[in-house]
């Protein structure tokens, strides 16, 4: 009986808006506006002159303080490194790192779960363990190792990201592999498909939802990561967006807030577009990452 009653209530959109809920709607609308204000303030300040920004951060650009796109043009070459180059390296490292992590760790996780030897159990344990360890614990020895192995290029750092991102990825893929009935793979095996064919033909397509979740979580991490690339990359040749921004904001000479704010807008823009394009997947990714954790 209770089941039927709850079913009847299922179409949630039609729930009557009580007075309390109307108040809540207004409260949340106000909070939402306050929530986006910091980003919005930076957006309109990026069109103001430095004098205008210093005078009053909160006033809209007017005839005197309006600076057009001058900040954006200046920001492109501001500092000792071109912004677009930092943006390209950020894009390259994020795409490369995430692709490498997805391919390698999904294979590894499947092997770990299906062969299930003592050695694999130890590797799995270490992967989980690595998620809790703070970066500062391995920061120095990792950058030293990377230096010795000449991993200080954007190509080399992909390998480091594979190692450092393996923990979460193996954990999530393993959780999913455990839920796949082994009979499917055994049937493929009986039909003569080797492990490689079984993996790429059968297991990989089933894993697609987890693939997307891992991709989202690792993208969010690598794109915004500051300290790891800062310590590992050869700073004279390669910078990512966070490294470049921190350098501009640091106490190296005169800080040009107009130019920095223009760059802040430019670095947030792709993320916002990415967010609106795949919001559903991002939220699912966050939930499944957390529930398995």
């Amino acid at each position, binding site marked *: 009986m209770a*089941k039927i009653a*709850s079913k009847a209530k299922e179409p949630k*959109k039609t729930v009557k808006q009580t007075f309390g*809920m109307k108040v809540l709607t207004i409260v*949340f*609308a106000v*909070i939402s506006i306050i*929530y*986006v204000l*910091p*980003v919005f*303030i930076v957006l309109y300040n990026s069109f103001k002159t430095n004098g205008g920004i210093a005078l009053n*951060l*909160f006033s809209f650009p007017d005839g005197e303080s309006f600076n057009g796109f001058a900040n954006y043009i200046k920001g492109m070459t501001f500092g000792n490194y071109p912004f677009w180059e930092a943006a390209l390296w950020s894009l390259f490292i994020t795409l490369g790192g995430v692709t490498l992590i997805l391919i*390698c*760790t999904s*294979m*590894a996780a499947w*092997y*770990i779960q299906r*062969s299930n030897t003592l050695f*694999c159990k130890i*590797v799995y344990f*270490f*992967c989980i363990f*690595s998620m*809790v*360890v*703070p*970066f500062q*614990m391995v*920061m*120095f*020895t990792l950058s030293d*190792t990377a230096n010795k192995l000449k*991993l200080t290029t954007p190509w080399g750092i992909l*390998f480091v990201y*594979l*190692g*450092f991102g393996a*923990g979460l990825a193996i954990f999530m893929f393993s959780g999913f592999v455990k839920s796949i009935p082994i009979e499917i793979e*055994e049937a493929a095996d009986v039909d003569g498909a080797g*492990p490689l064919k079984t*993996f790429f033909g059968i297991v990989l397509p089933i894993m697609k939802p987890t693939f997307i979740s891992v991709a989202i979580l690792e993208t969010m991490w690598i794109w*915004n*990561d*500051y300290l790891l690339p800062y310590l590992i990359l050869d700073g004279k040749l390669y910078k990512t967006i*966070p490294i470049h921004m921190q350098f501009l904001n640091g106490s190296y000479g005169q800080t040009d807030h107009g130019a920095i*704010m223009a760059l*802040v807008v430019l*670095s947030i823009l792709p*993320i*916002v577009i*990415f*967010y609106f394009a795949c919001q559903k997947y991002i*939220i699912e990714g966050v*939930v499944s990452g*957390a*529930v398995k*954790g």
Partner: protein
Amino acid sequence: MFKKPKRKLYALIFLLPTLAAFIVGFVYPFIRGIYLSFFKFQIVNKATFVGINNYIKAFKDESFLRSFWFTLAFVVVSVILINVMAFFIAYALTLNIRGSNVYRTVFFMPNLIGGIILGYIWHQIFDGLLRSMDMPSLVTNSDLGFWGLIILMCWQQAGYMMIIYIAGFQGVPHDLYEAAKIDGAKKTQILTKVTLPMMMPSITICTFLTLTNSFKLFDQNLALTGGAPLTDGIWTTRMMALNIYKTFYGEGISAKGVGQAEGVIFFLIVVVISLAQLYFTRRREVQA
């Protein structure tokens, strides 16, 4: 799937790339980090064994101790605030108020922006606010720095935790509410006796995530205050991660052995506290 004769060959294909990277990127640096914490060194090939001397020095290092207490205070305040905020926002948004999806989108958005950029944005906002009240900058007052970090962290993380709590609320079976209503439970009783126990898994996860995130906070700390102000030779708003970083690469004579020992201590604190938290909140979880 993997039969004996060919198992090793397939291990090469499937496991080796990840394993090699994992050893280079994590296992080896981790073990070597513990090893080097017992040595005094500037560059690694000239290290001299000093026993637990580095650890003794770390515990006598006032900036390290200050950063520990600062971090602990920050963790306690931020974990409580973020989780309470996220829990009630999620609760309200599952009541089907108009525009829930828009609010959810807005609250989650700060998570996609990196810590360095968030720190910069909030630094400008805080300084702008203080300036309009004729007050000095955020970096001149450690209390302001502390609360600035708290506001920034809440603003960023509440949306992430909200998503997890919403999933938790949606996962509570509807029959439980119906049954409670039929038994005559009041609204507050339903919240404390039905919803809260059923939400314990989400609370476990969110507490764990906020706890470890707050402990490990680095980017936001660096970009918002950078540890300033400097009072009596101690950077008063430096958290542990930033303090260890500065011990390694920072100003003055760097003591890398001590920095590594502080790293090990930091790691032990994070592991012990997060395991303890998992143990205590897991015990309260119930089955439907």
